[in-house]
Each structure stands twice: as C-alpha cells, then as structure tokens.
C-alpha cells in the first residue's frame, strides 16, 4: 500500500444526539489512501461517537459516510463494514475462541476464505503483531496489551481499506501501551489508512500525517502534527495540549 491522494473515506456533516445532548454537530473529514489521522480532544467531545457513527455501530442522525465514493446505507452496511475494521478500546476479542480462531472467524464466515488460506493469513498477521506464539491461547490467558495486538491482527486479516482505532491504549496499564503503539506505528509506516482516536502523543507526533482536534462535537482545528503541536491556533487546543504533553513528560 502506498500513499496517494485517492480518497478512501469521506465523512460529510455527521450529526448525532443522545436525548437532549448533541454529541456530534456537523463533523466532516476525509482520509486519503495511506493516511494516518489522529483525532484528539477532551473526553465527552464526541471522538468515540464519531468513530461509531462512521461504521454505523451508532447510526448517525444526519450526514453521510462514503467509502471509496460508495455511501454506507442500511442495505450495504454489512458488505461495507468488512472493509472498515474497528479496533475497540476494550479489545472485544471473542472470548470463546482461541486467538487464531478470532483472526480466522471473519475470514471464514464473511470473506469465505478456505480454512487453509484463513489459517495462513491469520498466522501471518499474528506474526506481524508479534503474537505467533500465542495463537492457541484463549483471550483470557493474555495480557491486555497482547489482547489488543491480537484484535489488531483480527482487523488486518480482513484486508480493510481503513482501520478505525477507538482509544486502543486507554484500557491498558501504562507499561503495556508501548507494545500496542509500536504495532500501530509500524502499520502507519507501511501505509495503512487509519483513523485513530487516541491521546498517545508519541504516536501522534511521529506517525500521524494529520491531527484533528475536536471540541463540543465539532472539529475546531486540524493540521500536520508539527504545526499543531508547535503552534496551535485555537485556545482550546492549546489548553488541551498543555495538559496531555505535561502528562506525557511527567
């Protein structure tokens, strides 16, 4: 996969409200092939909701999501979701399946790959995230960091056009975030198209092509990390960055 200007994901004016609370108030963004975009912002600003609306885990109230120009609709949903992988904050590995079967399930049942092909691919992806030796363990027998890497392997095996990461390190003990961030950096450098909600400043600085800063359900600022970290234009961005960079150095 190589970077290009070809548009993979386009999000147009998404709106979502829960009861009286408007969580998303018109969010638009695009991802081009090979681009890694990081969404930041204080908690409760709608970052996770944005990701969930993109693959319609929470259907948006208004707005459109297009994958390579094709809109997601209830009719095309299942067919299109296989191209949009989702990595959850709390992993959500299938508890009753061994790691290798977690990585095989979607390949077998959705992509209809042969067992041999699915197995080969699963081992390849587990190798990639450094878990080949844990293939026959159950999720409950792995550490949090290992579970999250396994869930990334599960995502990769589906040949997604884009991967959505929903705070992939925030449920982990601090000493375990590193192994997950390393895998994500590697993916970004290999040209995987990814949209990442995360406060991992290290990842954002070194691996992201662009940072999107959200506040109050809208995007207030976006730009390359060098610009945004060094010279944030918006008051809220400055305040937020001050807090998280301080935490990082602490």
């Amino acid at each position: 996969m190589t970077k290009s200007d070809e548009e993979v994901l386009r999000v147009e004016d998404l709106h979502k409200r829960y009861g009286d609370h408007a969580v998303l108030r018109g969010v638009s963004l695009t991802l081009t092939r090979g681009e890694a975009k990081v969404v930041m912002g204080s908690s409760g600003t709608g970052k996770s909701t944005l990701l969930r609306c993109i693959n319609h885990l929470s259907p948006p109230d208004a707005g459109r999501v297009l994958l390579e120009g094709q809109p997601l609709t209830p009719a095309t949903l299942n067919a299109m979701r296989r191209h949009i992988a989702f990595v959850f904050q709390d992993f959500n590995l299938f508890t009753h399946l061994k790691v290798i079967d977690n990585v095989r399930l979607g390949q077998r049942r959705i992509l209809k790959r042969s067992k041999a092909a699915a197995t080969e691919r699963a081992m390849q992806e587990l190798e990639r995230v450094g878990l080949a030796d844990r293939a026959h363990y159950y999720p409950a027998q792995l550490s949090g960091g290992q579970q999250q890497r396994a869930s990334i392997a599960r995502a990769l095996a589906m040949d997604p056009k884009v991967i959505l990461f929903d705070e992939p390190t925030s449920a982990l003990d601090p000493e375990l975030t590193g192994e997950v961030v390393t895998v994500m950096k590697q993916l970004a450098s290999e040209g995987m198209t990814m949209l990442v909600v995360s406060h991992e400043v290290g990842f954002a600085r070194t691996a992201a092509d662009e940072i999107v800063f959200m506040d109050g359900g809208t995007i207030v600022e976006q730009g390359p990390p060098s610009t945004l970290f060094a010279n944030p234009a918006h008051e809220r961005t400055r305040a937020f960055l001050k807090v998280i960079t301080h935490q990082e150095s602490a």
Partner: protein
Amino acid sequence: MEFLDFAGEHLPFILEGVPVTLGLWILAISFGFVFGLVLAWCRIYAPTPLYLLATGYIEIFRGTPMLVQMFFIYLGLPEVGIVLDPFTSAVVAIGLNTSAYQAEYFRAALLSVPQGQMQAARAMGMGQTQALIHVILPQALRRVLPQWSNEAILELKFTSIAFAIGVSEITARAEQVGYRTFEFFDVFLLVALVYLVLTGVVAEVLQWVERRVHVPGVTTTGAAAG
C-alpha cells in the same frame, strides 16, 4: 438378603423401562432446548406481539403443574381431533414444560454476554443472526450449562409422571411388579435406587461435558439454580 433376591428377580423387568425413560427424556429436553432458544430469542429480539406471546407462554407453563398439562394433551386434545399416543403425549408435555424453564435460563445467559461481543461481530460485517450463531450463542450456552444441567436432571425425574398416562417407563414397570408381588416397599425402594443411579450417572456425564467445553474466561451466569 431377601431384598437382594427380590431385586435380582425383578430388576431386569424394571430396567427394560430404562430405554423408554431415557428416550422420553432425551426427546423432551431436546425439544425444550430448541423451542426454549426460540422463546428466549422472542423475549429479547422479537417485535412486541411475539414478545408478548412468548412471555405469556412461559408464564402459563411455569405457573401450572406438568401433570395437568399432560392430561390436557393426552386426554383433552382428542376432543379437537388431535390424538397422540401416551409416549408422544408425554414427550410433548414434558418438552413444552421444560422449554418454558429453559427459555428463561437462555434469556439470562444471552443477556449476560457483554455487548462488546455483538459490536465486534457487527463491526466486522456480520449480520445479527450470523453474530448470534457464531459469537453470542457459543458463549451463552457455555455460561448456562450448569443451570441447564440442573434443569435436565429435574426433567429426568419428571419423566416418571408419564406413568400416570400409561407410558411403560421405569415407574410404571415397578408398579406392575408391585401388583404382581404385593411387595410394594421393596419394589419402590428398588426403583428409587434405579433413579438415584440414573441421575447420578447423568450428572457425571453433564459435568464431563462442562469440563470438555470449558473455555477460560467464559464462566457461568451465576449461582446454580436449586
């Protein structure tokens, strides 16, 4: 000694009822398993009319005695042209009855699977039914297994009720021996022992199944039911 002689003489005749008892039991709990899952599905996922039907069904079958249900089916249904032989009537009655209990266990088990599991399956591109089959059910069934085993053993004992409509299972055969020999105490003591062994063996088998399908991290829904 006298009892042992008695047992030696009459046990074979009583044991000929074991296949009937076990056949009745297996058919009834299998029927209850399938129908119980359908009812549980109705209670969780179905539109309101189906939900209400399933709820009403469960309330009625859990709120009335199995013997009355069995008479209703065996003696009553011929009035509307449905004639079933005693064995079939017993299978239907016990099956309908246990399905109502199994449904409630299944419902609790399905709801106890964390929501993230369904989300992860859907996010991958699975439809709801596909996700239920490949992700939710395998976990729910493992979680419910201890309670389900209790229910199955309870039903094994309830198969003796079929004797009241003339099914020639263990209890009915014991009663026949009683009327032949007039040794009622001995014969019913003997059949009690047969049931103790039978329920003991079945309990062992079910525990073996539990160990067999055990997966670390997929644990039971709660305390075993009484």
